[in-house]
C-alpha cells in the first residue's frame, strides 16, 4: 500500500524514536502497566506505524465497501444509505406479555423484532412437562403451540416487520409454527423476511440448548436450507453465532475462528446434501459479540468479512457475490455487565455498541443495564434502545464508511486477527472439521481454558473492572427489576392443555406419525411435515418427543 523506500525510512525513524524519545521517557517514569494487553490478553504495542503494514495491499486486502473482500463493509453505501436495524432481543412471560413488549419497542422506533424464548421452549419441552417446572416464562416467552405463536405476533404484520428468533435445537419446529402464522395471516412465504438462529454447532460448543446428537441435527439443518431456498427465499436460515462462544469466555480470536469454522461446516453440509452453494450461502448470516476491548472488536468484524469472502470464493468456489458477503448481527456483551453499580453498564453498552457500528454491523442489540440481575424492565430496555439512537443521530459515527480503515493500529490488529484465526481453522480442518473437533471437546476446552485464564487475571487485579475490583463503593445502587408473575406458569399450562383438548385429536396424531416416519428416511424433508403438524396444533414438545424417539438425544459430556 505504501512505497517500500518510504516504509524503510519510517522503520528507521521508528527505531530512532524508540531509542531517543520513548526509552528516556520510560526510564524517568516507568509505564502505567508492565504489559499492555487486550481483554483477550493479546499484547498491544505503544504505537503502530505504516512500516508494520508493508504487505497490506489496498485492492486485495481492503478495497471499497461493497467490493471483495468487503473488509470495509458489505454494502456500497453502508449507513449513509440506511442505518443498521435496531433489533432488541425481547421475551418474557406469556405470549401476551411479549406481544405487548414488541409493540412498545416498535412504537419507540425499533426497526426489527427479536424473540427470546424461555428455556423449556429452547430445550424442546412444553410448559406442562415436569422438566419445565419453575422455568415457565422466566428467561423468555413460553411458546408451546401455534396458539402461542398466533398471540405473540398478533397485530404485527409479518410481511412488513422482520423477525429474528433465537432458537436452535427446535429451530425447525418453531420456524414451522411461524410459517403457520404467516399462512393464517395470508402472507405468502416468499415475502417473509427474518432469521432463525438455527446454529446447533455453537450449542454443543457454548450455549448448550440442544436436543439431538450432531449428525441428525445437521440433517435437520440441511432440510431447512433446501426448504427455504425453494419456498422462503428471503429468510436467513442460519445465524452463525460467535456471541455465545464469547460469552462462555473465549478470546476474540477464538470467537472469530470457531464461528467461521462452524460456517464452513454448514456450507460443507449443504454442498454434501447436493444443494448448489449459491442457492443457500447468500442466506447465511452471522452474529458476533461486541465485547469491551474497543479496537480488538472492530478488528474482529473487519477480519471476519475478509476471511469469509476468501473462504467462500476460494474454498467453496461460490460464484455469486452475495455468497461471499458476511452480513452480521451484533449484541453487546452480557458477560461484561456488572451487578455492582449497575448504572455504569449504560456506559459499557454504549462503547460496545459503537464498536459494532464502527465495525459495520447490519443489525444491533444493545443490552439493558439490569441484565446481570433480571430480564430488562421497560425503562432499562428503552435506555438501551436510545443508546443506539444517540449513536445514530448525534455522534456522527454513521456519517462515513469504515472510519477506522487505514488506522495503522486497526489494520495491524485486523491482520493479526486473520492470521491467528486462520491457524485455528487449519487445526480444526486437520481434526476433520468442526463436528469432529466438537466430539473431541476441542473448542469446548479451549474456551474453558480462556475463561479460567481471564478470571484469574481479574482476581489478581491484572484486569480491572470498575465497581468489581476497582472503584468499589460499600452500598449498592438499587435499580427497579422486572419480576415474572408467578401465575404465568399456571396460565400457560392451562392454555396448552386446552389446546390439546380442543384440537382434532386424530389429525394431530396422524401428523405426529407422519413426522416420525419422515425422520426415519433421509430422503424426506422434515420442514413440510413440521408445518403441517404445527397447523394441527401439535405442540413443540410433541414434535420434539417424536424426533427424540427416532433421532436420539444429546447429553452434556460435563468436561471442566
Amino acid at each position, binding site marked *: 500500500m505504501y512505497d517500500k523506500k518510504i516504509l524503510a525510512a519510517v522503520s528507521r525513524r521508528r527505531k530512532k524514536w524508540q531509542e531517543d524519545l520513548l526509552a528516556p521517557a520510560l526510564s524517568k517514569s516507568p509505564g502505567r502497566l508492565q504489559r499492555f494487553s487486550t481483554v483477550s490478553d493479546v499484547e498491544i504495542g505503544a504505537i503502530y506505524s505504516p512500516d508494520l503494514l508493508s504487505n497490506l495491499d489496498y485492492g486485495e486486502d481492503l478495497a471499497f465497501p461493497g467490493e471483495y473482500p468487503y473488509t470495509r463493509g458489505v454494502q456500497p453505501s453502508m449507513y449513509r444509505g440506511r442505518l443498521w436495524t435496531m433489533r432488541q432481543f425481547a421475551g418474557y412471560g406469556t405470549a401476551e406479555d411479549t406481544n405487548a413488549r414488541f409493540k412498545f419497542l416498535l412504537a419507540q422506533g425499533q426497526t426489527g423484532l427479536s424473540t427470546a424464548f424461555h*428455556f*423449556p421452549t*429452547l*430445550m424442546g*419441552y412444553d410448559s406442562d412437562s*415436569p*422438566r*419445565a*417446572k*419453575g*422455568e415457565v416464562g*422466566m*428467561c423468555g416467552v413460553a411458546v408451546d403451540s401455534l396458539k402461542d405463536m398466533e398471540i405473540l405476533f398478533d397485530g404485527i404484520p409479518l410481511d412488513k416487520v422482520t423477525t429474528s428468533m433465537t432458537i436452535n435445537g427446535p429451530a425447525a419446529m418453531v420456524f414451522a409454527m411461524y410459517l403457520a402464522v404467516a399462512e393464517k395471516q395470508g402472507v405468502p412465504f416468499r415475502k417473509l423476511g427474518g432469521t432463525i438462529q438455527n446454529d446447533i454447532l455453537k*450449542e454443543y460448543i457454548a*450455549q*448448550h*440448548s440442544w436436543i439431538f446428537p450432531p449428525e441428525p441435527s445437521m440433517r435437520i439443518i440441511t432440510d431447512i436450507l433446501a426448504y427455504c431456498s425453494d419456498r422462503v427465499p428471503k429468510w436467513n436460515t442460519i445465524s452463525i453465532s460467535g456471541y455465545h462462544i464469547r*460469552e*462462555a*469466555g473465549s478470546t476474540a480470536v477464538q470467537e472469530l475462528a470457531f464461528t467461521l469454522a462452524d460456517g464452513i461446516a454448514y456450507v460443507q453440509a449443504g454442498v454434501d446434501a447436493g444443494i448448489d452453494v449459491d442457492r443457500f450461502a447468500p442466506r447465511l448470516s452471522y452474529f458476533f459479540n461486541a465485547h469491551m476491548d474497543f479496537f480488538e472488536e472492530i478488528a474482529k468484524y473487519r477480519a471476519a468479512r475478509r476471511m469469509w469472502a476468501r473462504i467462500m470464493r476460494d474454498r467453496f468456489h461460490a460464484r455469486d457475490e452475495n455468497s461471499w458477503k458476511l452480513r452480521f448481527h451484533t449484541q453487546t456483551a452480557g*458477560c461484561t455487565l*456488572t*451487578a*455492582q453499580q449497575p448504572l455504569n453498564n449504560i456506559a459499557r453498552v454504549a462503547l460496545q455498541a459503537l464498536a459494532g457500528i464502527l465495525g459495520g454491523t447490519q443489525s444491533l442489540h444493545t443490552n439493558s443495564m439490569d441484565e*446481570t*440481575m*433480571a*430480564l430488562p424492565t421497560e425503562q432499562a430496555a428503552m435506555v438501551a434502545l436510545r443508546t443506539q439512537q444517540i449513536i445514530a443521530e448525534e455522534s456522527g459515527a454513521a456519517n462515513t464508511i469504515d472510519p477506522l480503515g487505514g488506522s495503522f493500529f486497526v489494520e495491524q490488529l485486523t491482520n493479526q486477527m486473520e492470521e491467528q484465526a486462520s491457524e485455528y481453522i487449519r487445526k480444526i480442518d486437520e481434526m476433520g472439521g468442526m463436528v469432529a473437533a466438537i466430539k473431541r471437546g476441542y473448542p469446548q476446552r479451549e474456551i*474453558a481454558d480462556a*475463561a*479460567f485464564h481471564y*478470571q*484469574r487475571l*481479574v*482476581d489478581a487485579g491484572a484486569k480491572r*473492572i470498575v*465497581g*468489581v*475490583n476497582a472503584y468499589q463503593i460499600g452500598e*449498592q445502587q438499587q435499580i427497579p*427489576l422486572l419480576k*415474572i408473575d408467578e401465575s404465568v406458569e399456571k396460565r400457560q399450562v392451562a392454555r396448552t392443555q386446552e389446546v390439546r383438548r380442543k384440537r382434532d385429536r386424530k389429525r394431530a396424531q396422524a401428523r405426529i406419525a407422519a413426522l416420525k416416519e419422515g425422520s426415519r428416511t433421509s430422503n424426506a424433508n422434515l420442514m413440510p411435515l413440521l408445518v403441517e403438524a404445527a397447523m394441527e396444533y401439535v405442540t413443540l414438545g410433541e414434535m420434539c418427543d417424536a424426533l427424540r424417539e427416532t433421532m436420539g438425544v444429546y*447429553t*452434556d*459430556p*460435563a*468436561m*471442566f
Partner: protein
Amino acid sequence: MATARGKAATTAAPGKPSRKIRILVGKPGLDGHDRGAKIIARALRDAGVEVIYTGLHQTPEMIVNAAAQEDVDGIGLSILSGAHNYLFPKVLDLLKEKKMGNVVVFGGGIIPDDDIPKLVKRGVDRVFTPGTAIQEIVDYVNGRIQPRR
C-alpha cells in the same frame, strides 16, 4: 448421567483428615450457562477439593441422587435461569427426604438481592452473586465444609 470428576494431585497434610472435601457442582434446570460452574469446579479442584461436576440440564432428583452416590459433603448449585426459587428448595427438600440434611448447599448465579434472604431462610447456606472472586468461594468451602471421615 454424565459426570466428570477432577481429583487434585495434592495429598492432605499430616494431622488433617485423610479424606478430601467432596463437592458436587451442579447445574439444575434447563439453562446452558456453565461458565461459572466450570470455573468454580476447576478452582476447587486446584485447591485440593475433590469435585464432581454433574453437567448441564439436571433435575433436582438427578442432583440429589448423584450427591448420595458420591457421598459428598457439599453441593454447589449454579442457576442463571431465574428458576432459583423453585430449584434450591426442591434440592433441599429431597436431601431431607434422603436423610442427607447435613450436606451443605450453597450456590450462585443470576439471583436478585431480594431473593437471597428467602433462600437462606429456606436452608441455602450461602448465595454468591456475580463479581465474587474465585478465592472467596474456595475459602468459603475450605472454612465451612468439613470432610466426613
